């Protein structure tokens, strides 16, 4: 699989996803510096987490106006797959690639912890079609602005179109605090209309070993990559 990882000033999960991509696919992704505009054709572009441009103005707002975004839009129009994680999700929204907005967590506190994700019934998407719906994913979040907010109309549209990818769900022990940020309808990730762009707040690249965070992120990424090249 030919993949690329965008790097903005302030990106800080770029190395983590590069490691994951390399371990899973055996091939290192290319690094896409935000000012660069010439890239080879790719199967997947990942916009990693972090604090691009220090989250100044609004999370993702400045990155969404970087030169590299034009390449991402071209890549999408060619049918390419894009995964935006955390700040990457915020950037996709600020760039107008995904709808809605990500506002501050309900408790107004940065939150880093495990969450349990339920896979939703969606339109055809390489990110989800390899996964069994009944298997929940345990993947951590770490963010201050992950509260997905949208109008009722948009929320209904996303639901009816099968574009809600993941929802936070209660774990077995009846945890009332299962939604880490207060997002509408417990939404943790959404898809583009063609199902090939996924924006998600949880960090799958932080759940790739048994010693810490578990391996559900590894499962998710592996299945996605299989489908993308499949």
């Amino acid at each position, binding site marked *: 699989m030919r993949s690329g990882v965008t790097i903005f000033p302030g990106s800080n999960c770029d190395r983590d996803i590069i490691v994951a991509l390399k371990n899973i696919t055996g091939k290192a992704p290319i690094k896409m510096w935000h000012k660069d505009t010439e890239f080879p054709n790719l199967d997947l572009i990942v916009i990693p987490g972090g*604090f691009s441009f220090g989250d100044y103005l609004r999370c993702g707002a400045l990155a969404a106006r970087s030169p590299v975004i034009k390449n991402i839009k071209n890549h999408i129009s060619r049918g390419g797959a894009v995964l935006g994680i955390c700040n990457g999700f915020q950037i996709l929204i600020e760039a107008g690639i995904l709808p809605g907005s990500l506002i501050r967590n309900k408790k107004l*506190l940065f939150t*880093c912890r495990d969450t349990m994700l339920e896979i939703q019934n969606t339109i055809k998407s390489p990110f989800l079609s390899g996964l069994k719906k009944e298997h929940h994913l345990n993947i951590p979040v770490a963010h201050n602005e992950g509260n997905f907010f949208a109008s009722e109309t948009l929320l209904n549209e996303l639901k009816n179109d099968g574009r809600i990818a993941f929802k936070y769900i209660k774990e077995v022990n009846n945890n009332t605090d299962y939604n880490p940020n207060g997002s509408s309808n417990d939404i943790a990730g959404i898809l583009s209309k063609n199902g090939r762009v996924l924006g998600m707040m949880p960090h799958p690249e932080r759940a790739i070993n048994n010693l810490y*965070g578990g391996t559900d992120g590894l499962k998710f990424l592996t299945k996605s990559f299989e489908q993308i090249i499949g």
Partner: protein
Amino acid sequence: MKISNQTLYNINKNEYRAQLESTLKDAMEMGLTEDEFNLICKKIKKIPNKTELGIFSAMFSEHCSYKSSKKWLKTMPTRAKHVIQGPGENAGVIDIGDNLAAVFKIESHNHPSFIEPYQGAATGVGGILRDVFTMGARPIALLNALRFGSPSELLTKHHVSGVVKGIGGYGNCIGIPTVGGETNFDKSYDGNILVNAMAVGLANKNRIFYSAATGAGNPVIYVGAKTGRDGIHGATMASTEFTDNSSEKRPTVQVGDPFTGKLLLESCLELMSTDAVLSIQDMGAAGLTSSSVEMASKGSLGMYLNLDLVPTREDKMTSYEIMLSESQERMLMILKPGSEENAKSIFDKWDLDFAVIGEVTKTGRLILDKDGFEACNIPINPLVEDAPEYDRPYEIIQNKNTIKVNELNINYAVDEILAKIFENPNISSKRWIWEQYDSSVMGDTISSNGKSDASIVKIHGTKNSKSLGKGIAMTTDCTPRYVKSDPINGGMQAVCEAARNIAASGAKPLAITNNLNFGNPEKKNIMGEIVGSIKGISKAASFLNTPIVSGNVSLYNETNGKGILPTPVIGMVGVIDEVENCLEMNAKEDNTLLILGQSENFTEGWIGCSIYQEIENKKIDAAPPPVNLEKEKKIIDILLQLHTKNLLTAAHDISDGGLLTTICEMLFKNNLGLNLNLPKSLLKSDSKDPTLHSWCFGEDQGRIIVATDEIDKVNFFLKDSNLDYFVLGKTNASNILNLKDITTIYIKSLKNSFEKTLPLIMG
């Protein structure tokens, strides 16, 4: 006073005297004493101008000169085979094998955090990270040690909330995981909170960068953020006591920008991977002053700077402001001549300022030009060599009062005491705090936030076919009430507890960074606390072969004459060869729990100075539990031997709250229960029996509880070890802790208060 060569000055005697008097007044406002001022005039053979005086006052401040503690700091053990760089550089460096070095340091940001919690804490984190990457290391973990006032005070909530947000605000944004630390509350910190931040980094051991300037004529480079008017005289502010008007000092607090910090980190590491950097020093306390002076002084050279070339945020900044500003995210470097263009292109890429602002000289003087005039011309040597060093009078007060079990006035039953212990914010879960820190960014965290007694981060790039790789174990520890009651013993205890925590996580303790937080050293008893703790720390560190390689001293933590509990925080680092072998503190079902370091016949625990004494007596006025260094060393050795044989499933050090508290903590995570074995003589006791209480809650040192699913093999090994141990029982799924027929303890409800306490306080 006399100036040797008055003819230097074209002024008459009266004018001279007036100038001297007014400068002395300025000097005293900047925190210098009259003696210190006279010394300065004598050494530089003139009356200093405002810029020169500002530079001297910053360099002579307690914060920069360590004038009260230097005499004693020199006595600390700093060497061992594995030490590459001890105290004196930006951070300490130790060899951890595989050509790698761990670079680490802890530093306080107490005074600024009290005045402005968010920025104070954030810049504390930023500053300590710069100390580490200045040495050429990529920071891989952050820890902290926090002390706040009474939880019931409104101001305390303001402090906790702001400090935690500030630490998270910087660490989360720059993308270094905050993996551990400790937080305590005590009314002695009402007027002076403590914010100590520790950073650990990783470097190639042959690519460590130092600060000594080299080569006259080499260019001096300024990189990073622009200089503003923030933090002017921050180091001086941090060297005095607080009064009621201390909030007026808010402008002396620096403002952090973690985004620029991240850019500076990446650009500096990128430049350091070339051969351009000869020496480098971050601009921390006392900004451009201390960085230029220290670089020149360490290289026995001089420095010329043209301050007009310094990138500034505001117009018309004076030489005084530029030299004393503590604006964050700035570095000073000496580059190899000819490499400037290449270096500049790296900083251009990261959109950071890069300016050649001067050169290294042979003069031995610090010469500064501003607006075409000479703003400063002073010899470097007196700034460092002649910085005052005081041998302050001290008295080490050791509380010798021991409390006998039969003197106890018992109010509560065992289960009631446990309930009170877990409602105590000093024992309760700090989840509310650590969930606000990104603990898993960088993808290398193995253990954080109390999963094991020390936090563990794996070392990127050491993965092999057998293992995910090597790991670094880290912890911060101190029990201030012990230090208050007996500074020497308390200092030893802090080191030993840190070492036990490292070992209980499965790692080998290697070295220490320390943060000595005290009140006003001009008071005999406080100086005694400083001297006593240093003696204790030194003794234990040298016995355990964990030398002190870096550290920081924070004095004058007093408000209106009231000082904090003495708080010499120990930050310890260790290494684990294969991170798969990290030991959790959580027991699993059907594990046998054993206590190492205590025999079956032991029944009378040490309750003096314990959490238990505080609960039953409402006060702490006794000698702390004694420390036996041989026992401490032995228990660590045996624990690691058992672990090497793969016989352990969990380990947890016994500290605050004693044996029973520790057992409960080990049962929480997996909702376990235990039928606890008691020593024979306690079997007939009731739930208010003083001896039983002392056995349950005594805080005797040198004890660790381990869990095993191979009890026969463990028994066999321990039989010949000459170490006391006692089998406590086997864990089960009941979630109930039974003390025979004496009492039944519901773990679930304790876990509930353990989790609820801090969120309730913080609202």
